């Protein structure tokens, strides 16, 4: 069979489950929504027509699919209904009781999506600019520019939060 069997999917999730979940959580900033995104990615893997043999490509595919699922989630009618403006997630996070991440992650979540994803892939997953370009299907110039701009914006967010940016080395 050319597609993944349930057993193979379980193995993949065992290996990359946290990778998917972290990206989803960083994007949607809530455990409940991250759970939904995670399951959506699993279903997309289930529906894959053919297997991805290379591990690196599989991880890249999972990350890209997670980012796309988050975008779909933001576009969904449910999300539009329960939010009130263009920056709703931060407001929801403020009233949420599930805020359990650290300060730097919170600051990362304050960035807009296009910078947040790139910074996460660069600093956490340790992909190069070229690799990020391939994963997100963006030009290297665009990735480098967003990386640079994202860092500047993150610095401002950290400063606004009352912490001294000077003690962080990028």
């Amino acid at each position: 069979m050319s597609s993944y069997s349930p057993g193979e999917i379980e193995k993949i999730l065992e290996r990359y489950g946290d990778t998917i979940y972290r990206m989803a959580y960083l994007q949607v900033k809530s455990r409940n929504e991250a759970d939904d995104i995670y399951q959506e990615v699993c279903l997309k893997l289930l529906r894959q027509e053919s297997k991805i043999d290379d591990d690196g490509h599989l991880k890249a595919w999972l990350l890209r699919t997670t980012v796309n699922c988050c975008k779909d989630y933001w576009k969904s009618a449910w999300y539009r209904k329960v939010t009130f403006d263009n920056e709703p997630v931060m407001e929801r996070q403020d009233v949420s009781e599930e805020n359990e991440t650290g300060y730097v992650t919170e600051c990362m979540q304050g960035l807009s999506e296009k910078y947040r994803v790139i910074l996460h892939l660069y600093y956490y997953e340790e992909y190069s600019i070229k690799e990020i370009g391939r994963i997100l299907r963006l030009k290297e110039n665009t990735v480098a520019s967003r990386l640079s701009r994202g860092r500047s914006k993150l610095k401002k967010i950290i400063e606004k939060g009352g912490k001294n940016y000077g003690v962080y080395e990028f």
Partner: protein
Amino acid sequence: MEFMNFKECYKAEMDAVKKTPNLTGEILFTEEVRKQFENCESEKRQRAGWAKTWRSVVFAAVAICMIGTVINHEKVEGLAKSLFGMFTLSTDEEEMDFGEMEIVQMNMEKFIADPETTKAGGTGENKVLSYNHFFGSYEKMNQVSGIVLPCADKVEYTDITVDVVPEWGYGHISAQMSCDGASYNVNGIYAVNEFGEDSLGYGDRNGATVEKYEYGKDKRAYFLEAPDGGLRVYFAEEGILFQMTVCNGEPDVPEEKASLPYGFATGTKEQAKVLLDLFGE
């Protein structure tokens, strides 16, 4: 003061984020999901027949394209050669050039060796390292990297980030540029000594040229406006192709709004032209 590394802090925090325990494979394959899986399999089998037909059609199309590519190869090669060392900007409407690229004489060894320069790179065999450094002032940046920014004696540069990928032979720079009470967010792209590509530049698919502005001797800048009203100007100085955000008629908007999506700017188009004239002197 304890020196904290952003990457280490972020990694430590994110490592603690783990998927909900009951989201494992066992829970995934509930009755409902199993039904979906079976439906998927059935759909796949149905599509398989069609897929064979499509594959034949695609194979024929690819073969025709390959023949066309071989015929055009010489033409393409000729075009690439003619673009050697050019700074370029492309939009949906047109392709502009800013003349020949100057190689920026960056002090790479010193920049990489500086203790505050951080390196990052990909994983696996094709790992490519990039080096980056955030500077609070122009003087420090110039001292460590050797990079010269235009009219640094008259223009103030702050929040400067320098990135470079030596293996690819080019780097990026971003900064906040201030002059005569006006401020602009700038990004720049530049080639270093080992640069081996034919052209380097920006592609701005959402921007439409609103004005070509000539300043100094044989120097030109292009103002581009995005559909959402964002205004940027592109120009080349000191071997760097700059993309500068310009305030598009709303200098009083709060910084949070003005900074999205193109970076913070209070300088208007007219003020930007005065700045360009300064570069042209």
